[in-house]
Protein backbone atom coordinates (compact mmCIF):
# COMPACT_ATOMS: atom_id res chain seq x y z
CA UNK A 1 0.00 0.00 0.00
CA UNK A 2 3.00 2.28 0.44
CA UNK A 3 3.55 2.11 -3.32
CA UNK A 4 4.71 5.50 -4.55
CA UNK A 5 6.09 6.32 -7.98
CA UNK A 6 8.10 9.18 -9.45
CA UNK A 7 6.44 11.50 -11.96
CA UNK A 8 7.25 14.77 -13.70
CA UNK A 9 5.36 17.90 -12.71
CA UNK A 10 3.67 19.50 -15.75
CA UNK A 11 1.41 22.13 -14.14
CA UNK A 12 1.03 23.71 -10.70
CA UNK A 13 -2.18 25.31 -9.42
CA UNK A 14 -1.62 27.29 -6.22
CA UNK A 15 -5.00 29.03 -6.46
CA UNK A 16 -6.80 26.05 -4.88
CA UNK A 17 -6.49 24.68 -1.38
CA UNK A 18 -4.77 22.26 -1.07
CA UNK A 19 -2.42 23.13 -3.97
CA UNK A 20 -2.85 20.75 -6.89
CA UNK A 21 -1.00 20.02 -10.11
CA UNK A 22 -0.71 17.78 -13.13
CA UNK A 23 1.95 15.07 -13.00
CA UNK A 24 3.04 12.76 -15.82
CA UNK A 25 3.97 9.15 -15.09
CA UNK A 26 5.66 7.98 -18.27
CA UNK A 27 2.95 9.75 -20.31
CA UNK A 28 -0.04 8.97 -18.10
CA UNK A 29 -1.19 12.22 -16.50
CA UNK A 30 -2.89 12.54 -13.15
CA UNK A 31 -4.05 15.36 -10.93
CA UNK A 32 -1.95 15.29 -7.78
CA UNK A 33 -1.92 17.24 -4.51
CA UNK A 34 1.30 19.30 -4.30
CA UNK A 35 0.56 20.99 -0.96
CA UNK A 36 3.49 19.35 0.84
CA UNK A 37 6.15 20.31 -1.70
CA UNK A 38 6.10 24.08 -1.24
CA UNK A 39 9.17 24.71 -3.42
CA UNK A 40 8.00 22.56 -6.34
CA UNK A 41 8.48 23.96 -9.86
CA UNK A 42 7.40 22.66 -13.27
CA UNK A 43 9.71 19.88 -14.58
CA UNK A 44 10.59 18.71 -11.05
CA UNK A 45 10.17 15.00 -10.37
CA UNK A 46 8.02 14.17 -7.35
CA UNK A 47 7.21 10.88 -5.64
CA UNK A 48 3.47 10.35 -5.57
CA UNK A 49 1.43 8.16 -3.23
CA UNK A 50 -2.40 7.88 -3.40
CA UNK A 51 -2.63 11.18 -5.26
CA UNK A 52 -0.24 13.13 -3.03
CA UNK A 53 3.33 14.21 -3.77
CA UNK A 54 5.28 13.23 -0.65
CA UNK A 55 8.80 14.13 -1.77
CA UNK A 56 10.76 15.96 -4.42
CA UNK A 57 13.32 13.76 -6.13
CA UNK A 58 16.86 14.77 -5.27
CA UNK A 59 18.68 14.46 -8.59
CA UNK A 60 22.13 14.74 -7.03
CA UNK A 61 21.47 11.87 -4.61
CA UNK A 62 19.91 9.78 -7.37
CA UNK A 63 23.05 10.16 -9.49
CA UNK A 64 25.26 9.52 -6.47
CA UNK A 65 23.67 6.11 -5.84
CA UNK A 66 24.15 5.11 -9.48
CA UNK A 67 27.72 6.39 -9.51
CA UNK A 68 28.60 4.33 -6.43
CA UNK A 69 27.30 1.21 -8.09
CA UNK A 70 29.14 2.03 -11.33
CA UNK A 71 32.35 2.22 -9.33
CA UNK A 72 31.76 -1.23 -7.91
CA UNK A 73 33.53 -2.88 -10.83
CA UNK A 74 36.78 -2.54 -8.88
CA UNK A 75 38.11 -4.77 -6.12
CA UNK A 76 37.24 -4.80 -2.45
CA UNK A 77 40.36 -2.88 -1.44
CA UNK A 78 39.42 -0.02 -3.73
CA UNK A 79 35.96 0.09 -2.16
CA UNK A 80 37.37 0.34 1.33
CA UNK A 81 39.59 3.19 0.21
CA UNK A 82 36.57 5.00 -1.22
CA UNK A 83 34.46 4.63 1.93
CA UNK A 84 31.38 5.42 -0.17
CA UNK A 85 29.02 5.02 2.78
CA UNK A 86 30.26 8.31 4.18
CA UNK A 87 28.06 9.92 1.58
CA UNK A 88 24.96 8.61 3.26
CA UNK A 89 26.24 8.67 6.79
CA UNK A 90 26.88 12.38 6.73
CA UNK A 91 23.13 12.99 6.52
CA UNK A 92 22.48 11.59 9.96
Amino acid at each position, binding site marked *: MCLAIPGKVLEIDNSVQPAMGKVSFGGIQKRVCLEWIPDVVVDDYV*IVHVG*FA*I*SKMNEEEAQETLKL*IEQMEGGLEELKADEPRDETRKQ*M
Partner: protein
Amino acid sequence: MRYIDEYRSEAAAKRMATRIRQVTTHPWTLMEICGGQTYTIVKYGLEELLPDEITLVHGPGCPVCVTPLELIDKAIVIASTPGVIFTSFGDMLRVPGSSKDLLTVKAEGGDVRMVYSPLDAVKIAQSCPEKRVVFFGVGFETTAPANAMAVWQAKRLGLKNFSVLCSHVLVPPAIEALLSSPTNRVQGFLAAGHVCTVMGYEEYIPLALRYQTPIVVTGFEPVDILQGVYMTVRQLEEGRVEVENQYARSVRREGNVPARKLMAEVFQTTNRNWRGIGEIPNSGYALSPEYADYDAEKIFSVEGIKTRESEECIAGQVLQGLKKPHQCPAFGTGCTPEHPLGAPMVSSEGACAAYYHFGRFRLGRTSAPEVVVT
Protein backbone atom coordinates in the same frame (compact mmCIF):
# COMPACT_ATOMS: atom_id res chain seq x y z
CA MET B 1 10.49 5.49 -16.56
CA ARG B 2 13.05 7.88 -15.15
CA TYR B 3 14.22 7.10 -11.59
CA ILE B 4 12.84 3.57 -11.92
CA ASP B 5 14.55 1.88 -14.88
CA GLU B 6 18.07 2.75 -13.69
CA TYR B 7 17.39 0.94 -10.44
CA ARG B 8 16.22 -2.20 -12.24
CA SER B 9 19.45 -2.62 -14.21
CA GLU B 10 20.57 -6.24 -14.28
CA ALA B 11 24.23 -5.27 -14.51
CA ALA B 12 23.99 -3.00 -11.48
CA ALA B 13 22.11 -5.66 -9.51
CA LYS B 14 24.77 -8.27 -10.31
CA ARG B 15 27.53 -5.89 -9.35
CA MET B 16 25.80 -5.19 -6.05
CA ALA B 17 25.28 -8.91 -5.41
CA THR B 18 28.97 -9.61 -6.07
CA ARG B 19 29.91 -6.97 -3.57
CA ILE B 20 27.57 -8.46 -0.97
CA ARG B 21 29.21 -11.86 -1.45
CA GLN B 22 32.65 -10.29 -1.05
CA VAL B 23 31.88 -8.67 2.29
CA THR B 24 29.85 -11.49 3.86
CA THR B 25 31.77 -13.79 6.21
CA HIS B 26 29.12 -14.62 8.83
CA PRO B 27 25.48 -15.73 8.74
CA TRP B 28 23.11 -12.77 9.08
CA THR B 29 19.32 -12.50 9.27
CA LEU B 30 17.88 -9.28 7.92
CA MET B 31 14.27 -8.16 7.79
CA GLU B 32 12.76 -5.93 5.13
CA ILE B 33 9.94 -4.04 6.80
CA CYS B 34 7.74 -3.08 3.90
CA GLY B 35 5.48 -5.34 1.88
CA GLY B 36 6.47 -3.42 -1.25
CA GLN B 37 10.06 -4.48 -0.64
CA THR B 38 8.98 -8.09 -0.06
CA TYR B 39 7.18 -7.95 -3.42
CA THR B 40 10.34 -6.79 -5.21
CA ILE B 41 12.51 -9.39 -3.45
CA VAL B 42 10.20 -12.24 -4.37
CA LYS B 43 9.32 -10.99 -7.87
CA TYR B 44 12.94 -10.52 -8.95
CA GLY B 45 14.24 -13.54 -7.02
CA LEU B 46 16.76 -11.38 -5.18
CA GLU B 47 17.32 -14.03 -2.51
CA GLU B 48 18.83 -16.24 -5.21
CA LEU B 49 21.53 -13.60 -5.79
CA LEU B 50 22.54 -13.48 -2.13
CA PRO B 51 25.14 -15.70 -0.45
CA ASP B 52 23.77 -18.59 1.62
CA GLU B 53 24.83 -16.82 4.82
CA ILE B 54 22.19 -14.13 4.35
CA THR B 55 18.57 -14.83 5.23
CA LEU B 56 15.88 -12.29 4.45
CA VAL B 57 12.75 -12.49 6.55
CA HIS B 58 9.68 -10.58 5.59
CA GLY B 59 8.33 -7.99 7.96
CA PRO B 60 4.91 -6.75 9.05
CA GLY B 61 4.84 -3.75 6.68
CA CYS B 62 1.71 -4.61 4.74
CA PRO B 63 -1.16 -2.56 6.16
CA VAL B 64 -3.76 -4.84 4.61
CA CYS B 65 -2.13 -7.79 6.37
CA VAL B 66 -1.91 -6.28 9.84
CA THR B 67 -5.40 -4.74 9.91
CA PRO B 68 -7.25 -6.71 12.60
CA LEU B 69 -10.16 -8.91 11.62
CA GLU B 70 -12.53 -6.96 13.85
CA LEU B 71 -11.86 -3.77 11.88
CA ILE B 72 -12.86 -5.59 8.67
CA ASP B 73 -16.03 -6.72 10.48
CA LYS B 74 -16.71 -3.11 11.52
CA ALA B 75 -16.21 -1.99 7.90
CA ILE B 76 -18.67 -4.65 6.74
CA VAL B 77 -21.32 -3.49 9.23
CA ILE B 78 -20.91 0.14 8.16
CA ALA B 79 -20.84 -0.70 4.43
CA SER B 80 -24.05 -2.73 4.83
CA THR B 81 -25.89 0.21 6.43
CA PRO B 82 -28.56 1.70 4.10
CA GLY B 83 -27.69 5.20 2.86
CA VAL B 84 -23.94 4.66 3.20
CA ILE B 85 -21.36 4.95 0.41
CA PHE B 86 -18.33 3.02 1.66
CA THR B 87 -15.07 3.99 -0.05
CA SER B 88 -11.75 2.20 0.18
CA PHE B 89 -8.46 1.49 -1.55
CA GLY B 90 -8.92 -1.59 -3.73
CA ASP B 91 -6.80 -4.01 -1.75
CA MET B 92 -9.00 -3.85 1.36
CA LEU B 93 -12.09 -5.01 -0.52
CA ARG B 94 -11.11 -8.67 -0.76
CA VAL B 95 -9.78 -9.16 2.76
CA PRO B 96 -12.02 -11.75 4.42
CA GLY B 97 -13.89 -10.66 7.53
CA SER B 98 -15.28 -13.31 9.83
CA SER B 99 -18.31 -13.92 7.57
CA LYS B 100 -17.66 -12.12 4.26
CA ASP B 101 -15.60 -9.44 2.53
CA LEU B 102 -16.49 -5.94 1.31
CA LEU B 103 -16.86 -7.10 -2.31
CA THR B 104 -19.59 -9.48 -1.13
CA VAL B 105 -21.32 -6.54 0.58
CA LYS B 106 -21.21 -4.79 -2.81
CA ALA B 107 -22.60 -7.87 -4.58
CA GLU B 108 -25.43 -7.92 -2.05
CA GLY B 109 -26.38 -4.36 -3.01
CA GLY B 110 -24.18 -2.27 -0.74
CA ASP B 111 -22.67 0.88 -2.25
CA VAL B 112 -18.97 0.01 -1.92
CA ARG B 113 -16.62 2.02 -4.12
CA MET B 114 -12.91 1.76 -4.80
CA VAL B 115 -11.07 5.09 -4.81
CA TYR B 116 -7.53 6.02 -5.85
CA SER B 117 -7.12 8.83 -3.32
CA PRO B 118 -8.86 9.79 -0.05
CA LEU B 119 -9.64 13.16 -1.68
CA ASP B 120 -11.84 11.27 -4.17
CA ALA B 121 -13.95 10.12 -1.21
CA VAL B 122 -14.32 13.74 -0.08
CA LYS B 123 -15.50 14.64 -3.60
CA ILE B 124 -18.12 11.88 -3.48
CA ALA B 125 -19.35 13.29 -0.13
CA GLN B 126 -19.63 16.75 -1.72
CA SER B 127 -21.60 15.47 -4.69
CA CYS B 128 -23.90 13.13 -2.69
CA PRO B 129 -25.09 15.24 0.29
CA GLU B 130 -28.01 12.88 0.89
CA LYS B 131 -25.65 9.94 1.54
CA ARG B 132 -23.22 9.25 4.36
CA VAL B 133 -19.75 8.68 2.88
CA VAL B 134 -17.21 6.66 4.85
CA PHE B 135 -13.55 6.21 3.88
CA PHE B 136 -11.61 3.17 5.09
CA GLY B 137 -8.49 4.92 6.41
CA VAL B 138 -5.85 2.25 6.81
CA GLY B 139 -2.14 2.37 6.09
CA PHE B 140 1.24 3.20 7.53
CA GLU B 141 2.84 6.62 7.91
CA THR B 142 3.11 6.91 4.11
CA THR B 143 -0.68 6.96 3.71
CA ALA B 144 -1.62 8.69 6.98
CA PRO B 145 -1.00 12.28 5.74
CA ALA B 146 -3.26 11.72 2.71
CA ASN B 147 -6.05 10.54 4.99
CA ALA B 148 -5.34 13.45 7.35
CA MET B 149 -5.76 15.81 4.42
CA ALA B 150 -9.13 14.26 3.53
CA VAL B 151 -10.43 14.82 7.08
CA TRP B 152 -8.95 18.32 7.23
CA GLN B 153 -10.54 19.15 3.87
CA ALA B 154 -13.94 17.76 4.93
CA LYS B 155 -13.86 19.94 8.06
CA ARG B 156 -12.78 23.00 6.06
CA LEU B 157 -15.64 22.46 3.61
CA GLY B 158 -18.09 21.95 6.49
CA LEU B 159 -19.09 18.48 5.25
CA LYS B 160 -21.35 16.70 7.74
CA ASN B 161 -21.72 13.49 5.72
CA PHE B 162 -18.07 12.38 5.61
CA SER B 163 -16.26 10.18 8.11
CA VAL B 164 -13.24 7.87 8.30
CA LEU B 165 -12.92 4.37 9.71
CA CYS B 166 -9.40 5.04 10.88
CA SER B 167 -6.81 2.40 11.73
CA HIS B 168 -3.36 3.73 10.96
CA VAL B 169 -0.30 1.82 12.11
CA LEU B 170 3.25 2.99 12.76
CA VAL B 171 6.53 1.27 11.91
CA PRO B 172 8.93 2.14 14.79
CA PRO B 173 6.76 0.62 17.59
CA ALA B 174 6.46 -2.56 15.48
CA ILE B 175 10.25 -2.73 15.07
CA GLU B 176 10.60 -2.29 18.82
CA ALA B 177 8.03 -5.05 19.48
CA LEU B 178 9.96 -7.40 17.18
CA LEU B 179 13.36 -6.55 18.67
CA SER B 180 12.21 -6.92 22.26
CA SER B 181 10.56 -10.29 21.62
CA PRO B 182 12.44 -13.29 23.07
CA THR B 183 11.95 -15.10 19.75
CA ASN B 184 13.56 -12.33 17.71
CA ARG B 185 16.23 -13.44 15.25
CA VAL B 186 16.50 -10.27 13.16
CA GLN B 187 19.99 -8.72 13.23
CA GLY B 188 19.47 -5.83 10.82
CA PHE B 189 16.56 -3.97 9.26
CA LEU B 190 15.85 -2.51 5.86
CA ALA B 191 13.52 0.32 6.90
CA ALA B 192 10.67 1.32 4.60
CA GLY B 193 11.72 4.08 2.22
CA HIS B 194 8.33 5.70 1.72
CA VAL B 195 7.39 5.66 5.40
CA CYS B 196 10.69 7.48 6.01
CA THR B 197 10.03 9.84 3.10
CA VAL B 198 7.14 11.16 5.21
CA MET B 199 8.53 10.69 8.72
CA GLY B 200 12.29 11.01 8.26
CA TYR B 201 14.54 8.63 10.19
CA GLU B 202 15.45 10.38 13.42
CA GLU B 203 13.15 8.17 15.50
CA TYR B 204 15.06 5.07 14.27
CA ILE B 205 18.37 6.20 15.74
CA PRO B 206 17.55 5.48 19.43
CA LEU B 207 16.00 2.15 18.36
CA ALA B 208 19.15 1.09 16.50
CA LEU B 209 21.34 2.06 19.45
CA ARG B 210 19.13 0.56 22.18
CA TYR B 211 18.93 -2.82 20.44
CA GLN B 212 22.37 -2.62 18.79
CA THR B 213 20.77 -3.35 15.44
CA PRO B 214 21.73 -1.60 12.19
CA ILE B 215 18.86 0.02 10.29
CA VAL B 216 19.20 1.10 6.66
CA VAL B 217 16.43 3.18 5.09
CA THR B 218 15.93 1.42 1.76
CA GLY B 219 14.06 2.00 -1.51
CA PHE B 220 11.93 -0.39 -3.52
CA GLU B 221 13.67 -1.27 -6.77
CA PRO B 222 15.91 -4.36 -7.00
CA VAL B 223 19.16 -2.35 -6.98
CA ASP B 224 17.91 -0.30 -4.02
CA ILE B 225 17.20 -3.42 -2.01
CA LEU B 226 20.51 -5.08 -2.84
CA GLN B 227 22.32 -1.88 -1.87
CA GLY B 228 20.30 -1.76 1.38
CA VAL B 229 21.35 -5.36 2.10
CA TYR B 230 24.97 -4.50 1.29
CA MET B 231 24.98 -1.49 3.62
CA THR B 232 23.39 -3.49 6.45
CA VAL B 233 25.77 -6.43 6.04
CA ARG B 234 28.77 -4.10 6.00
CA GLN B 235 27.66 -2.61 9.30
CA LEU B 236 27.22 -6.06 10.80
CA GLU B 237 30.55 -7.34 9.50
CA GLU B 238 32.38 -4.24 10.73
CA GLY B 239 30.60 -4.22 14.11
CA ARG B 240 29.03 -0.82 13.47
CA VAL B 241 25.49 0.18 14.46
CA GLU B 242 24.05 3.15 12.61
CA VAL B 243 21.01 4.37 10.80
CA GLU B 244 22.02 4.86 7.17
CA ASN B 245 19.99 6.14 4.26
CA GLN B 246 20.19 4.19 1.00
CA TYR B 247 17.09 5.96 -0.42
CA ALA B 248 18.53 9.47 -0.20
CA ARG B 249 16.97 10.49 -3.53
CA SER B 250 13.62 10.59 -1.71
CA VAL B 251 14.27 10.52 2.04
CA ARG B 252 15.48 13.50 4.09
CA ARG B 253 16.47 13.15 7.71
CA GLU B 254 13.47 15.22 8.89
CA GLY B 255 10.99 13.70 6.42
CA ASN B 256 8.24 15.83 4.88
CA VAL B 257 7.67 18.59 7.41
CA PRO B 258 4.35 20.03 6.11
CA ALA B 259 2.84 16.53 5.89
CA ARG B 260 3.97 15.71 9.43
CA LYS B 261 2.51 18.98 10.69
CA LEU B 262 -0.91 18.15 9.29
CA MET B 263 -0.79 14.63 10.76
CA ALA B 264 0.08 16.05 14.18
CA GLU B 265 -3.02 18.24 13.96
CA VAL B 266 -5.48 15.59 12.80
CA PHE B 267 -4.20 12.47 14.59
CA GLN B 268 -3.05 11.36 18.00
CA THR B 269 -1.16 8.16 18.80
CA THR B 270 -3.07 5.24 20.24
CA ASN B 271 -2.54 1.56 21.07
CA ARG B 272 -3.29 -0.65 18.06
CA ASN B 273 -4.07 -4.27 17.68
CA TRP B 274 -1.94 -5.81 14.90
CA ARG B 275 -3.45 -8.81 13.21
CA GLY B 276 -1.53 -11.92 14.18
CA ILE B 277 0.80 -10.00 16.50
CA GLY B 278 -1.48 -8.47 19.13
CA GLU B 279 -1.66 -5.07 20.75
CA ILE B 280 1.40 -2.83 20.51
CA PRO B 281 1.41 0.31 22.69
CA ASN B 282 1.28 3.66 20.85
CA SER B 283 1.59 1.89 17.51
CA GLY B 284 -1.11 3.72 15.59
CA TYR B 285 -2.97 6.91 14.86
CA ALA B 286 -6.56 7.70 15.75
CA LEU B 287 -8.39 10.95 15.04
CA SER B 288 -7.62 13.65 17.61
CA PRO B 289 -10.53 14.96 19.77
CA GLU B 290 -10.81 18.03 17.52
CA TYR B 291 -11.72 15.75 14.61
CA ALA B 292 -13.85 13.26 16.59
CA ASP B 293 -16.94 14.25 14.55
CA TYR B 294 -15.34 12.47 11.59
CA ASP B 295 -14.78 9.15 13.41
CA ALA B 296 -16.90 6.49 11.70
CA GLU B 297 -16.51 4.07 14.63
CA LYS B 298 -18.33 6.53 16.88
CA ILE B 299 -20.90 7.66 14.30
CA PHE B 300 -21.95 4.09 13.46
CA SER B 301 -21.55 2.74 17.03
CA VAL B 302 -19.35 -0.18 15.98
CA GLU B 303 -16.77 0.27 18.73
CA GLY B 304 -18.09 -2.76 20.62
CA ILE B 305 -17.51 -5.29 17.83
CA LYS B 306 -14.88 -7.86 18.89
CA THR B 307 -13.72 -10.72 16.68
CA ARG B 308 -11.31 -13.60 17.25
CA GLU B 309 -8.73 -14.47 14.61
CA SER B 310 -8.74 -17.79 12.72
CA GLU B 311 -6.46 -20.38 14.31
CA GLU B 312 -5.72 -22.08 11.00
CA CYS B 313 -3.83 -19.10 9.56
CA ILE B 314 -0.23 -18.59 10.74
CA ALA B 315 -0.10 -15.00 9.44
CA GLY B 316 1.16 -13.74 12.80
CA GLN B 317 4.27 -15.91 12.61
CA VAL B 318 4.85 -14.94 8.98
CA LEU B 319 4.50 -11.24 9.84
CA GLN B 320 7.04 -11.56 12.64
CA GLY B 321 9.53 -13.31 10.37
CA LEU B 322 9.30 -16.57 12.36
CA LYS B 323 7.97 -18.62 9.45
CA LYS B 324 8.05 -18.40 5.68
CA PRO B 325 4.69 -18.51 3.90
CA HIS B 326 5.22 -21.96 2.37
CA GLN B 327 5.74 -23.41 5.85
CA CYS B 328 2.03 -22.96 6.52
CA PRO B 329 0.08 -26.22 6.11
CA ALA B 330 -2.73 -24.34 4.36
CA PHE B 331 -0.42 -22.56 1.86
CA GLY B 332 -1.54 -23.16 -1.71
CA THR B 333 -4.16 -25.69 -0.64
CA GLY B 334 -6.67 -24.38 1.90
CA CYS B 335 -5.43 -20.83 1.35
CA THR B 336 -4.99 -19.28 -2.11
CA PRO B 337 -5.42 -15.73 -3.48
CA GLU B 338 -8.86 -16.79 -4.76
CA HIS B 339 -9.89 -18.18 -1.35
CA PRO B 340 -7.62 -16.54 1.23
CA LEU B 341 -7.71 -17.54 4.89
CA GLY B 342 -5.65 -14.55 5.95
CA ALA B 343 -4.75 -11.11 4.70
CA PRO B 344 -1.13 -11.83 3.60
CA MET B 345 -2.61 -14.01 0.83
CA VAL B 346 -4.84 -11.14 -0.36
CA SER B 347 -2.68 -8.09 -0.86
CA SER B 348 -0.06 -8.19 -3.63
CA GLU B 349 2.31 -6.93 -0.95
CA GLY B 350 1.46 -9.79 1.37
CA ALA B 351 4.31 -12.28 1.70
CA CYS B 352 1.99 -15.28 1.13
CA ALA B 353 0.53 -13.86 -2.11
CA ALA B 354 3.99 -12.92 -3.39
CA TYR B 355 5.30 -16.44 -2.71
CA TYR B 356 2.23 -17.93 -4.36
CA HIS B 357 2.35 -15.77 -7.49
CA PHE B 358 6.07 -16.05 -8.16
CA GLY B 359 6.57 -19.64 -7.03
CA ARG B 360 9.69 -18.82 -5.04
CA PHE B 361 8.96 -21.58 -2.56
CA ARG B 362 9.83 -24.11 -5.24
CA LEU B 363 13.34 -22.77 -5.79
CA GLY B 364 16.69 -23.27 -4.11
CA ARG B 365 17.03 -22.87 -0.40
CA THR B 366 13.46 -21.82 0.19
CA SER B 367 12.30 -25.05 -1.39
CA ALA B 368 9.49 -26.98 0.19
CA PRO B 369 9.07 -30.05 -1.99
CA GLU B 370 5.91 -31.15 -0.23
CA VAL B 371 4.09 -28.04 -1.46
CA VAL B 372 2.99 -28.18 -5.07
CA VAL B 373 0.75 -25.58 -6.62
CA THR B 374 -1.20 -26.66 -9.66
